[in-house]
């Protein structure tokens, strides 16, 4: 089976990537351990999630400026592809927006460790003619909309949340992602936590069987449909909404507070989760508690083998992680990502020692 998957990932790679990346993607590391590494160029390859691609490529290029002999290549082929490539050891590290499940971990030839790098969030966007006020949502209301239970914008549940907003009696058009995506994963993970009905009828995955609605491809597809379709609602990544100045509504968190997504609110959600962080960092922080915590937030992770075959590359990546978790976090703000809270960084710094580099 492993071979079959490798072959297909190869196809996916060939299709997704520019020819420019040459043949380097399958050659794990070209490190030379015979002499001192300082003069040798070390190339390390990784693949996975598209969501953190902008910050990862920024990190790798900045890190290359600091250490000209280290070149880290990253191919954003999607979380699913990243997990498979790292499982098949065609790349040194993987990246994913949703943590690997037990079945996936078992399929790997050795223990894999998760390391959160930055945070992302998903926001509800809508387009209701005549409504200029910000609409407030609860998880329950969002779940009912996406289950097709709330059919009109003037539904009692929405009206109760938004007193004073004149909601029209028009149909709700539901827009979701058509492509498999970490954004969908975070969104349905949240809806499944707050609505038992949603959990049983839809469930959590990067692609799900939506009971209603139309699918748009990518954040741009969803936001394109929402801006064009009167009476529609969709969900997009926070970064995408911020960069494109798309209005979105606040969502009620587990403490009952309505929080509008922002970089700060997302970091707060992670800080709240830090106290109960499991040692393997595979944690969902949706529906977080705590003042100002935005409920539809998530970590995105890098994946490393606990006992990497290539020790030299392992050492380089551990050093890189220490830099990314500290100095690297300052690039978050410019690119719209939420930085990790200090408490999470501390735990991760300690956990990096688990990677066996000698």
């Amino acid at each position, binding site marked *: 089976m492993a071979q079959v998957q490798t072959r*297909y990932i190869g196809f996916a790679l060939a299709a997704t990537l520019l020819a420019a990346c040459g043949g380097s993607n399958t050659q794990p590391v070209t490190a030379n351990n015979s002499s001192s590494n300082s003069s040798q160029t070390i190339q390390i390859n990784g693949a996975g999630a598209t969501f953190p691609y902008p910050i990862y490529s920024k990190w790798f290029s900045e890190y290359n400026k600091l250490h000209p002999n280290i070149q880290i290549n990253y191919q954003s082929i999607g*979380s699913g592809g990243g997990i498979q490539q790292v499982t098949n050891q065609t790349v040194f590290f993987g990246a994913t927006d949703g943590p690997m499940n037990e079945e996936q971990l078992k399929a790997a030839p050795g223990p894999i460790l998760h390391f959160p790098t930055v945070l992302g969030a998903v926001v509800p966007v809508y387009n209701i003619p005549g409504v200029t006020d910000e609409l407030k949502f609860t998880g329950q209301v969002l779940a009912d909309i996406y289950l097709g239970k709330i059919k009109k914008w003037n539904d009692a549940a929405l009206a109760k949340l938004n007193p004073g907003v004149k909601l029209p009696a028009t149909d709700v058009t539901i827009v979701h992602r058509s492509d*498999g995506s970490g954004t969908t994963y975070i969104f349905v993970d949240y809806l499944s936590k707050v609505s038992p009905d949603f959990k049983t009828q*839809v469930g959590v995955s990067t*692609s799900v069987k939506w009971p209603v609605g*139309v699918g748009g491809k990518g954040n741009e597809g969803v936001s394109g449909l929402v801006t064009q*379709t009167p009476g529609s609602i969709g969900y997009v990544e926070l970064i995408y909404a911020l960069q494109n100045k798309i209005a979105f509504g606040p969502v009620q968190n587990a403490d009952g507070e309505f929080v509008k997504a922002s970089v700060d609110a997302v970091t707060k959600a992670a800080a709240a989760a830090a106290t109960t962080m499991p040692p393997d960092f595979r944690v969902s922080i949706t529906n977080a508690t705590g003042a100002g915590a935005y409920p539809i937030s998530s970590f995105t992770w890098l994946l490393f083998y606990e006992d990497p075959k290539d020790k030299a590359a392992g050492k380089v990546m551990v050093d890189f992680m220490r830099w990314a978790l500290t100095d690297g976090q300052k690039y978050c703000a410019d690119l719209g990502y939420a930085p990790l809270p200090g408490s999470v960084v501390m735990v991760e710094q300690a956990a990096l020692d688990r990677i066996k580099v000698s």
Partner: protein
Amino acid sequence: MRSPDLGFRVSIGAFAAALLLVVIAIGFTLANDSWLSLQKFGLNFWRTSTWNPVSGEFGALPFIWGTLYSSVLALLIATPVALGIAVFISELCPRMLRTPLVFLTELLAAIPSIVYGLWGIFVLVPAVRGVETAMPASLRTLPLFSGPPLGVGMFAAALILAVMVVPFTSAVAREVLKTVPETQREAAYALGATRFEAIRAAIFFARTGIIGAVMLGFGRALGETMAVTMVIGNNPQVALSLFAPQYTMAAVIANEFTEAANALYLSALVEIGLVLFVITLAVNALSRALIWSMARQLPSKAAA
């Protein structure tokens, strides 16, 4: 003299055999990699409509339906237009206009499908939505036009496919019409045919080639991915309504392949590819059979 001849035959034969091998290899790889799904769902894969990656239930019917429905609709729209263009260029067009027209239709074929898709989202879909909302309520009760006016859906997909298919069909049909011997037209005129009748005779003479041109367009429509997925609405359902969001086989592979992280899911997606492969083969075989049967008729008619 003889040995280079033999060498030529062998090498050319090897190229032809390579093509055959590639097709067989594709079929084999698709079947092999979708084994898990083939075993688990069997023939039910073709006739069930649930596509649920969470629970691991996969049925391809809505995708098969969406692919065939959108392609047939696209052909219905594109064929008259493409034939019109071909006939105009080859039979009626003033010499001055011919080159720019040929150039323009070929330009249409060279536009990347993602560009068609973006044009679809920002221009075509709002226009379709406008038509849908303007449609009188009495018509909206027909099953063909039911559902909310979303803009995205089967109709938008068929239109965009039609635009993409026209240059292919018209280019081939034009070349085929060019091969009609001048004597055919002259004979028609000599018998007192009008211009329309002479052109009709030429089209009749070239009909097998024209069907080939149409089938080429059909093949293109079956496999078109990016532009369709951007406007079809991506909702796996078997619906007759032109306004309902639906889904195609190529679109679901493009959408879900990168994130398909478990073996059965991946295997089901590969099986969709296999189904598309089989359907494309069947369509091509059918069109071949059609052309053969017509070609067989031709001499007997000429003799009669």
